[in-house]
């Protein structure tokens, strides 16, 4: 117990815990919209592009002689992530089929650009490791404030506009026929995803960011049947795995980002395995589809003695 108190009073851990808590709440909120839009991999695409932003920030910082030379890495990541997400959204709007391909090209371009630029900046690809896999123990006080501000913005928009973002994510065609600003709302989701990627970068790293957005949602949708509750459960799971994972690394020397993601997936596996046992009183459903007959059969009145056709009485 005293060990727990020690951890909570450790200023390094305090900052890390605050960051983990905020990211754990907000990443699944954005992830719920992405899953609803069937864009679960968008976060990955943005994460890869953000790596180029990190390297670009580094390059500019080094060129300007700033100390430390990665001071512009996070602003660079924010800019690149937002630009990348807007680009993906534009491509998706142009032609639906090529969205998948555009995402793939962004994956490769993002990583290649990042490694190339970091070399030009005088670093090695090893310098990118902290960004690829997270470095939550090195969170500074100003990092915490940036995280607070960005997570506040994500939650404000993500929860405040939930009905509108749900409408656009659920049925874009109906949203258009309602005269909603569909383009702006889609952009809002894309930019939220970009901001989430950059705040979660510190906690789990760019390569694992998307897991924190998607896996809690996968757990949530197993146990609920409403959008609102899925989002709620996902956020709770997000917080629990982030804080638990981080706490474990206080005593055991493992990568916090990887541990958090492994924990989330473990929760998913357990819930998925237990789900059939816990399944709530699901009413027996007639498995036959409700489609009118294609062929003419004797009208219902004629065959009084005929056996009952339908499953329901």
């Amino acid at each position, binding site marked *: 117990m005293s060990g727990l108190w020690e951890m909570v009073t450790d200023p390094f851990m305090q900052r890390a815990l605050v960051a983990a808590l905020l990211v754990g709440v907000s990443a699944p909120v954005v992830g*719920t919209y992405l*899953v*609803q*839009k*069937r864009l*679960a991999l968008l976060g990955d695409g943005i994460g890869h592009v953000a790596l180029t932003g990190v390297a670009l920030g580094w390059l500019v910082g080094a060129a300007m002689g700033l100390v430390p030379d990665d001071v512009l890495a996070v602003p660079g990541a924010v800019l690149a992530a937002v630009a990348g997400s807007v680009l993906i959204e534009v491509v998706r709007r142009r032609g639906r089929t090529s969205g998948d391909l555009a995402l793939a090209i962004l994956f490769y371009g993002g990583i290649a650009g990042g490694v190339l630029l970091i070399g030009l900046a005088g670093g090695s690809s090893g310098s990118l490791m902290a960004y690829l896999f997270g470095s939550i123990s090195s969170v500074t006080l100003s990092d915490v404030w940036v995280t607070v501000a960005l997570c506040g913005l994500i939650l404000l928009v993500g929860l*405040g*506009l939930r*009905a*509108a973002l*749900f*409408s656009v994510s*659920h*049925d874009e*065609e*109906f*949203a*258009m*026929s*309602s*005269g*909603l*600003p569909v383009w702006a*709302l889609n952009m809002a989701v894309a930019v939220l995803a970009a901001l989430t990627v950059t705040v979660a970068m510190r906690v789990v790293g760019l390569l694992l960011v998307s897991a924190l957005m998607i896996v809690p*949602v996968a757990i*949530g*949708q197993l146990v*609920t*049947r*409403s*959008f*609102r509750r*899925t989002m709620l459960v996902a956020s709770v799971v997000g917080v629990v795995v982030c804080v638990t994972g981080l706490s474990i690394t206080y005593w055991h020397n493992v990568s916090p980002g990887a541990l958090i993601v492994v924990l989330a997936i473990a929760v998913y596996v357990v819930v998925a395995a237990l789900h059939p046992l816990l399944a709530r009183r*699901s009413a027996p*459903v*007639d498995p036959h*589809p*409700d*489609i*009118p*007959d*294609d*062929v*003419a*059969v004797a*009208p*219902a009145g004629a065959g009084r003695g005929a056996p009952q056709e339908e499953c329901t009485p």
Partner: protein
Amino acid sequence: MTTLATDPPSGATTPRDAAVPAIEARDVHVRLGASPVLRGVDLTVRRGEVVALLGANGSGKSTLVRTLVGVLPATAGSVRLFGHPLGNDVPWGRVGYVPQRVSAAAGVPSTAAEVVASGLLHGRRLRLPRGWRARVREALDLVGLADRARYATHQLSGGQQQRVLIARALVRKPELLVLDEPVAGVDRPSQEAFAATMTRLVAEGMTVLVVLHELGELAPLVQRCVVLRHGRVVHDGAPPTPQPGHGGDAHEHVHPHAHPRTVQHPENVRLAEGPFERPDDTDEEVAR
């Protein structure tokens, strides 16, 4: 069951004149990819009218209604809703659209109530209005699904899912209802519930444009039929007389698709002047 309407229409300035048509489309052309799906369609739906849009698969019916409600851009021509050209000026709160049902559940489960609530957002209204729960319940009650509000949509039957989509269009209390094949592949109880709902709405003055394969249960309500063929209007006038016995209250419509070549298909009745062209589905697929 409760009644609808009576609320003053939400949305932009209301042009007082009831003479302005609810829908006014002039020479609408729509091109999807390389294929011209609509080739100069004129369509006017006046207030309080019930118009059925008929035509074979691939004739452009769905494309036309999707263009009318602003989902697809028209390549040429103009569309006005309540006198306003499509865009931000249209009083979107007065228009309700029921798309063709898309089967398969979305990525995240959502309850019937959540889906219906999204119908309360329109134009620049991005947040749910006060008292939205009561209005959602009222709309679900109107389609006979009040007891299914908390069910996930994927737990509902096809017909019930379709009724959820109708409730989503009705929840904003529209004056114009545009429906795309509302009874296609729908079980009989849902078809009957739908016809009953429509009868009541029309009696209360609802303007309706409905895409249908055959008039079926709605025959007594439909005042005018517009028939599309290969992207053009080939008939605009009175609905064809239904076969004796069909369409009456006593008639039990057991097998809607049993006799595809009977009078129920108006294009087979009055429009025999042109050669009967190949029934292709290709346009329809492009439209999606």
